[in-house]
């Protein structure tokens, strides 16, 4: 499945958010990046995440069970990496981009996986906006972004590509 099928465009240049006050998501957000930031993977958060998705496999909860299955520590369920992108302290400010959080819908999501994420890892996370466009005559704004994660051994753990859609508030 191809996610965000339009080609990656834009430069890596950081662009100033504050200067943009248009109603739609401005195309100049393309290329906006978050700085690469180390995020600790806490054992408790993995357990909470696994419990919240009603997982019961002990490799997500119990060190001994994880080691018995050949892992160095309890591991994170596959989609856990998405939470690391949210935990990035300088994650994209959708509000500053003119998007209302409550009107944002997740449209598509892709993960390319590297090595698993384990409790105690420190994942360096950075994200980049690769495309913005509108549909339905401007009723929907789309933002496509890719997030990269590498562990403390400099091994890639994920490359995530997400597409979000924001419903514009009807004009009176």
């Amino acid at each position: 499945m191809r996610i965000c099928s339009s080609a990656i465009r834009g430069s890596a240049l950081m662009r100033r958010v504050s200067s943009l006050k248009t109603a739609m998501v401005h195309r100049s957000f393309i290329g906006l990046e978050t700085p690469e930031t180390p995020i600790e993977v806490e054992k408790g958060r993995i357990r909470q995440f696994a419990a919240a998705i009603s997982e019961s496999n002990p490799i997500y909860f119990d060190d001994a069970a994880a080691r018995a299955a050949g892992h160095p520590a309890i591991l994170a369920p596959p989609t856990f990496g998405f939470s690391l992108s949210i935990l990035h302290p300088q994650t994209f400010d959708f509000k500053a981009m003119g998007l209302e959080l409550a009107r944002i819908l997740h449209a598509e999501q892709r993960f390319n996986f590297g090595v698993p994420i384990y409790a105690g890892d420190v994942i360096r996370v950075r994200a980049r906006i690769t495309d913005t466009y509108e549909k339905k005559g401007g009723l929907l704004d789309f933002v496509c972004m890719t997030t990269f994660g590498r562990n403390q051994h400099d091994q890639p753990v994920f490359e995530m590509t997400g597409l979000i859609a924001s419903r514009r508030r009807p004009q009176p």
Partner: protein
Amino acid sequence: MSIPVYEDVLVGDELPPIVKPPLSRTTLALFAGASADHNPVHIDIDAAREAGLPDVIGHGMLTMAYVAQVLTGWVSPSAIRSYSVRFVAPTRIGNALTCTGTVIAKDPSSDGTVRIALQAVDQFGDVKVRGDAEVVLARGATRTNDAEIV
């Protein structure tokens, strides 16, 4: 967990389905906290109504995590190479999701990669998520009749 072997897996094979209890507000609150996705549209009915929705909706990433359990119930999480979904429709409170997967392709020139089509449907049969994944299986023929292998 018995580990599937590439040679034993056939196009059309269905993976064991994952059935989840009806979606509750508690589940959404716990997932919001655990996943760090605090978007109020998932946990605050006032915010959802303000945004023009009749009620809170489930996190897409919760459904994506449920569907991934079709894969991790079948192979080790480290065997999953890629996983993509399209969020077709939002999940609602009370939706009971059944997540399924079917082997749709095998790549004989690969290291044992198979492609899985995935979906989540609610109790009314409405599709909430469609997706696919690439999974790397162990190689090693255990089947004696090669003619069965598509």
